[in-house]
């Protein structure tokens, strides 16, 4: 297990470095932040001063060398816009995205397993149809549209929930609900399919011949096997959510990593963009590792 983790860590470190190089130079291609930060009528002197202050007057390679040097010393630079360490800005945003992703994914996984299993027991029954409808909505309706419709209905017409912002638990309900739909629709179908396969498997037949109770057959024999393909899809969806939900965060004014990322790209706040990408990459790496570990815990054939 430790060997697996070590190999993964090294492979991920390499891709992280490649990503770093790519993003560093690509983001510089978008232009110079100076013109965005200073008023249009700023004098050339002020512009030069700004460039010198942020090291933008050096050749690109020198800038890159300096960045890497600071990085080795765990310094990711400062945010130009906020005049604070970029890493602080990013971690602050992550402190919002992480619980959002965690809460949403927990609800998605729990609901998908229960409803997907129920759908598999009664194909064509109520839960099967419910799952189909949600999957269809998730696959076909864009989330910004769902978000806006939800705001119109629940916040404006009914007045039950706040339209945007954070602060009270009420503020979380709409973003979580909107983010819930697509991964739930996907995962519930995978659960349903693999549960159907597991229930018609030969080992379930053996369990019936052994006289094992139906509940144990379903939740002990079938479910653990059915979870194997599900875990992979959960990993994909969770990784996507760790990236931040750009659209949903923007619509609900939720100060998460997705919103921060898009804002800092538009403002050419390069250090924040790079820090955000690195933190996200590490989070996704840990996520994948977690999935691999879960997989090998569930399936002994992977372990041996």
């Amino acid at each position, binding site marked *: 297990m430790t060997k697996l983790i070590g190999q993964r860590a090294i492979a991920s470190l390499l891709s992280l470095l490649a990503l770093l190089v790519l993003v560093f130079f690509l983001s510089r291609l978008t232009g110079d932040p100076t013109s965005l930060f200073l008023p249009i009528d700023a004098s050339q002197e002020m512009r030069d001063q700004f460039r010198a202050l942020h090291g933008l007057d050096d050749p690109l390679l020198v800038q890159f060398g300096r960045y890497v040097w600071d990085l080795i010393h765990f310094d990711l630079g400062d945010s130009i816009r906020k005049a604070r360490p970029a890493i602080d800005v990013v971690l602050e945003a992550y402190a919002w995205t992480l619980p959002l992703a965690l809460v949403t994914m927990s609800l998605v996984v729990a609901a998908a397993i229960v409803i997907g299993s129920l759908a598999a027991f009664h194909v064509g029954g109520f839960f099967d149809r419910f799952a189909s409808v949600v999957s269809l909505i998730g696959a076909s309706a864009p989330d910004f549209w769902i978000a806006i419709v939800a705001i119109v209905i629940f916040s404006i017409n009914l007045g039950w929930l706040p339209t945007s912002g954070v602060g009270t638990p009420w503020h979380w309900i709409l973003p979580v609900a909107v983010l819930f739909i697509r991964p739930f629709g996907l995962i519930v179908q995978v659960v349903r399919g693999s549960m159907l396969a597991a229930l018609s*498997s*030969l*080992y379930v*037949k*053996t*369990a*019936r*011949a*052994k*006289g*094992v*109770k*139906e509940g*144990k057959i379903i939740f002990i*024999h079938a479910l*653990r*096997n059915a979870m194997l393909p599900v875990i992979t899809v959960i990993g994909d969806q969770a990784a996507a959510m760790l990236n931040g939900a750009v659209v949903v965060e923007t619509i609900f004014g939720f100060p998460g990593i997705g919103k921060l990322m898009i804002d800092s790209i538009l403002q050419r706040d390069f250090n924040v963009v790079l820090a955000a990408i690195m933190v996200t990459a590490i989070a996704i790496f840990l996520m994948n590792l977690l999935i691999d570990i879960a997989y090998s815990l*569930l*399936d*002994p*054939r992977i372990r*041996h």
Partner: protein
Amino acid sequence: MADYLLSVRNLSVRFHTARGAVDAVRSVSWHVDRGETLAILGESGSGKSVSASAIMNLLDIPPAEIVSGEILFGGQDLLKLSREERRRINGKRIAMIFQDPLGHLNPVYPVGWQIAEIMTAHGSKPEDARRRCLELLTRVGIPDVDNALRKYPHQFSGGQRQRLMIAMALALKPDLLIADEPTTALDVTIQAEVLSLLRELQAETGMGLVLITHDLGVVADIADRVVVMNHGEIVEEGSPRDIYHNPKHAYTKKLIAAAPGKGEIPAGEPEADVLLDVRSLSKGYGDFTALKEASFTLRRGQTIAIVGESGSGKSTLARSILRLEPADSGEARWKGRDLLKMPPRELLAARRQMHMIFQDPTQSLNPRMSVYQIISEGWDIHGLMPDRAARRDRVTELLVQVGLSPEHALRYPHQFSGGQRQRIAIARALALEPELIICDEAVSALDVSIQAQVITLLGRLREELGISFLFIAHDLGVVRDFADTVIVMKAGEIVEQGPTLQIFDEPRHPYTQRLLAAALDPDPDVQEGRRQAAATPS
């Protein structure tokens, strides 16, 4: 009547399918007593497993429907009991083992847990169950019992897995054990061991044993009584001896006539020119030696059978000759030219002269190609027969030659039965007019009667077209009927080769002797003689 351990009376089961209702069994009645072994003999689709599934409440209802009948066990009709009442009988009083123990064991739980579960499900305490597990595993002959309990199904061999299934089924000393094709997936020597284990355990416990099989040899070896099923009906019932020597029903007669391994053994090797000369062929996968210094010579018109158990290197030998896998060393001369060193263009031409037929025609025929496309594909690959009309005529000719009709050309593989699909595969092989056909277990998946027909067909083609065969098989009966030379392989090595007559009559290598001794004879008298000979080693 009520004295029987279990009796099935007038059972009719119907399956409601997309193509309409199918009567799987029609008014079937049979019974089994304590200490008795009843064999239910039949081919695929005969309904032989359906009554067992009904006993164990394993039928999916719907699509299945129990139209009529009763299953009497312990004075009550199982079909009238509640789900919960039947659950309490399953595993405790009636247990079942299956054909494919890998699929029937849950892959994600340790086997010890799975065996203990049958006991805890019926109220045993976990520590008692664990103790009994150790006892059971020792009894069925699993080595290193303490560690074995913690292992998972995939860590055992096929034979061991079936022993584990048996241990599990017998944990609560059931009154009746139902075994559905328990040895079909196993090698002959393992099959013999498992059957004798079942026999011993039955003698110890006095349980009734219902054995569902397609194999006359298994019936001859172990059954006290046999019922023969065909198309959902029982056509004949009696002792294995009566059935074998005096079959009354036409179907039983056909089945017994089709059993391989009874005719004259083909004698003599043809003195024709050498077609294929294999010298010191070796192949390894990492540390594992799959093939070690294999050498043999195949002459024109000759049929060489390669026999051996799973993992003995039979298929690796064939695949290395065809260069489907690169060999490590050695040579395989085809008409004097080494196939292993041939440049690609020459190899393509040489491959046209040899063709392979695989075990499972369902998988080896592309389901989205019509029979016409399947048969003519080889001509496209080799740029032959550009004229469409000539192609159509030739496909028609080939279909007739393998016993199908011309109108079959436009159909797709799923519209055919297993035997017919193998005929299509043979027609495809013949399309390129090969000089050598390599059959890799080509008849193993077929029912006995179909298998006999396919062997007859191959024999006819050999005579008419002078084709040579490399015939890979594990069924010695088929080999005895079809081959003139036999190569016996074990652990990647050829341990013995010679004329069929010599191998069967005077096997020299101890492994060949063991293999022949383990093979089951469909004649109950012959089989009893063999069993006694095996019990008292000379």
